[in-house]
């Protein structure tokens, strides 16, 4: 029972911290996008427009709730909650410092992958439940995409597992603390695996250039087409949560997690995560998006074999050189 309470305490803290950081992430993204487009971005609302995200949330809270007449009400209503919850759930096993971790599972990596895979269910529930053709197309795309990119994601995540010999995320970080960050050595495995992991993670969380389930120039707003108010807000939030948590996971698995000199570990973790988030947004605001079939071809023809080769190579490295 103690563990339950302790987990709840840590979990609550982590969740609140992540949710709060979202406001900053949102602001960063809008300002960054504006800079990249020679604009200014939100700045009227108060100095620097920092309270833009709270204003958005306050507004979304007040909007009327519309359920389309032909929608599947249960799916339609509860998909957003599930979507946001699943997005947060991934963060449970990420160690933000040596002590701050929601639940340090022995099979942490497996849990990460499993929780990530569940993420497609609310998306599909939303798309199917809306009974809207744009949403349905988005949902079908999301399913195909998530299911396909699951494979390279698992393969890429296997590389740190093989190299460190553990599925416990905190042990992977400790290993990197004692040896090297995986991206530094063996770099010929770490760098490709890191890139593969990030690509697959982007695809899983539907960010550009992999955001075809939500492609607003084709599918209006994709799966969220029929959602109003805070239900849409939850999907919107889940999208950002995915990005932040994917960054945190990548930082833990490949960039040494909370490892770093001079400052307490948690700051390093925050800095690395934030750096990854900025990189993702940089990609987002400078690339076009793929077409769904190109995305699938990219996955099955290039990423999957690359992942298999990486897994075999890292096993060879561990057995013969390690």
């Amino acid at each position, binding site marked *: 029972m103690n563990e339950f309470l302790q987990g709840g305490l840590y979990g609550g803290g982590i969740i609140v911290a992540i949710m709060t950081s979202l406001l900053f992430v949102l602001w960063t993204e809008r300002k960054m996008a*504006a800079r990249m487009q020679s604009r200014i*971005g939100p700045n*009227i609302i108060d100095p620097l427009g920092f309270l*833009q995200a709270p*204003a958005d949330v306050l*507004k979304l809270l*007040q909007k009327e709730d519309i359920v389309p007449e032909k929608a599947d009400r249960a799916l339609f209503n509860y998909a957003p909650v599930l979507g946001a919850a699943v997005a947060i759930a991934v963060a449970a096993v990420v160690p933000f410092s040596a002590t701050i971790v929601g639940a340090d599972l022995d099979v942490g990596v497996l849990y990460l992958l499993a929780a990530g895979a569940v993420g497609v269910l609310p998306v599909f529930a939303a798309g199917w439940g809306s009974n809207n053709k744009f949403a349905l197309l988005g949902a079908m795309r999301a399913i195909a995409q998530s299911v396909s990119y699951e494979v390279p994601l698992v393969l890429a995540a296997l590389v740190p597992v093989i190299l460190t010999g553990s599925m416990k995320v905190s042990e992977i970080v400790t290993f990197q603390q004692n040896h090297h960050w995986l991206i530094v050595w063996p770099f010929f495995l770490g760098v490709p695996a890191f890139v593969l992991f990030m690509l697959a993670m982007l695809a899983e969380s539907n960010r550009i250039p992999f955001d075809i389930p939500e492609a607003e120039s084709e599918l*209006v707003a994709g799966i*969220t087409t029929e959602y109003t108010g805070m239900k849409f807000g939850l999907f919107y939030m889940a999208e950002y949560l995915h990005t932040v948590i994917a960054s945190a996971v990548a930082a833990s698995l490949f960039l040494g997690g909370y490892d770093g000199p001079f400052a307490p570990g948690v700051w390093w973790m925050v800095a690395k995560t934030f750096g990854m988030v900025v990189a993702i947004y940089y990609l987002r605001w400078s690339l076009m998006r793929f077409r769904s079939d190109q995305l699938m071809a990219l996955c099955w023809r290039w990423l999957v074999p690359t992942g298999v080769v990486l897994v075999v190579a890292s096993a060879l490295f561990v057995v013969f050189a390690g």
Partner: protein
Amino acid sequence: MAVSETPPVVAPAPSVRTVDTGTNFRHPLYQVLLETPGLTVGTAALDDLMTWGLTNAMWIFPMATSCCGIEFMATAASRVDIDRMGVIVRATPRQADVMVVAGTITTKMAPRVLKLWEQMPEPKWCIAMGSCAISGDFYRNLYSVVPGVDTFLPVDVYVPGCPPNPEALMHGMMRLQEKVRRQRKGENVVPEVKPELLKITQPSVPRLTDPSRPSEQSHQQELSSDDPTTTEETAALVVPAGEAPTLAPLVAADFEGLLGELGVATLPTDGPPIIPLAQHLELARRLKAIGYKQLVTIAASHWPAGKGRKGADAAEVEHYEIAFAVRTIGQGSRVASWAVKALPTEPVLTLSGIYAGADWQEREQFDLVGVKFAGHPDLRRIMLAENADAHPLRREFPADAHAAPWR
């Protein structure tokens, strides 16, 4: 003259809507709080907070149809950047707060606009951007244009201009914010009136019967058309010596030969040669064979019986004249053009078997002028609604022929 589809249920011209006491929606929490004694301070603070959120995160649903849509995009671009106010553009009505009607709304589009408006969640506002959305501009009396979106939408802010500058739209957004703030405080907001600019945008159309236009003025203008008065000369207006304007003639040399073979001897100087209906397809086929590969245009015109028409032969019967133009490709491109005359009962054979582009062109001429093309694969209306029963470019069709709800 029902040229529009089944018109939408037109809402009565709405009076000003307030957020809290509006008739369209209610606020359950506020009502509970307001009825609880001793909570005034807290309620006011909550209300302020909520208003702050509402006014600073107004997401736009762009009902951008035409020119104003381009200026609307410019508002989102880097020079003005409406994102500074926290405004982002959502493509679905479900997530928007403000509908910006930017551009002309036609009677065919109006039911869709109304539906999209209804599909937006409350609280919602509407901005009419540009003179077309405000009043219909100079299209306002025409058969296919809605004279202002406030005939069926509750407009909150008018942004006049043709098109309004991006800065003007931004100002419109600020006016909307101010309006919402004051409404939420329970202040009496002066209803937004149609800008007086409307009078300027009214066209000086001599023949268009606009009830607000004094009839004497139109009459004067009609009279003065034959008035030989000239204005003061301007010094700059001296025609310099130079070559005559070079414009491609409608009858090129190789085309002339072809016409001779088909037995058309007399070529008119002021227009395309008139071909007998029977030879129409043959001519097109041969023109295509000698290099006139591109279909340029098909222009049909309606000629009512000559009697009563100015300068027309009284014996002339009602007919259509359909002109066709094709073009050679590459250096020294020439236009060849011919016309056929057809009685309203006579079918004109379709050109779409020879030039694929004639498909849509003939549909358009059928739709607007009323020419029936025989053998056309898909002779549906293209511009007007499918259930329209008039052909507006026929001469007897009045220009100010609005369908019933927009009159």
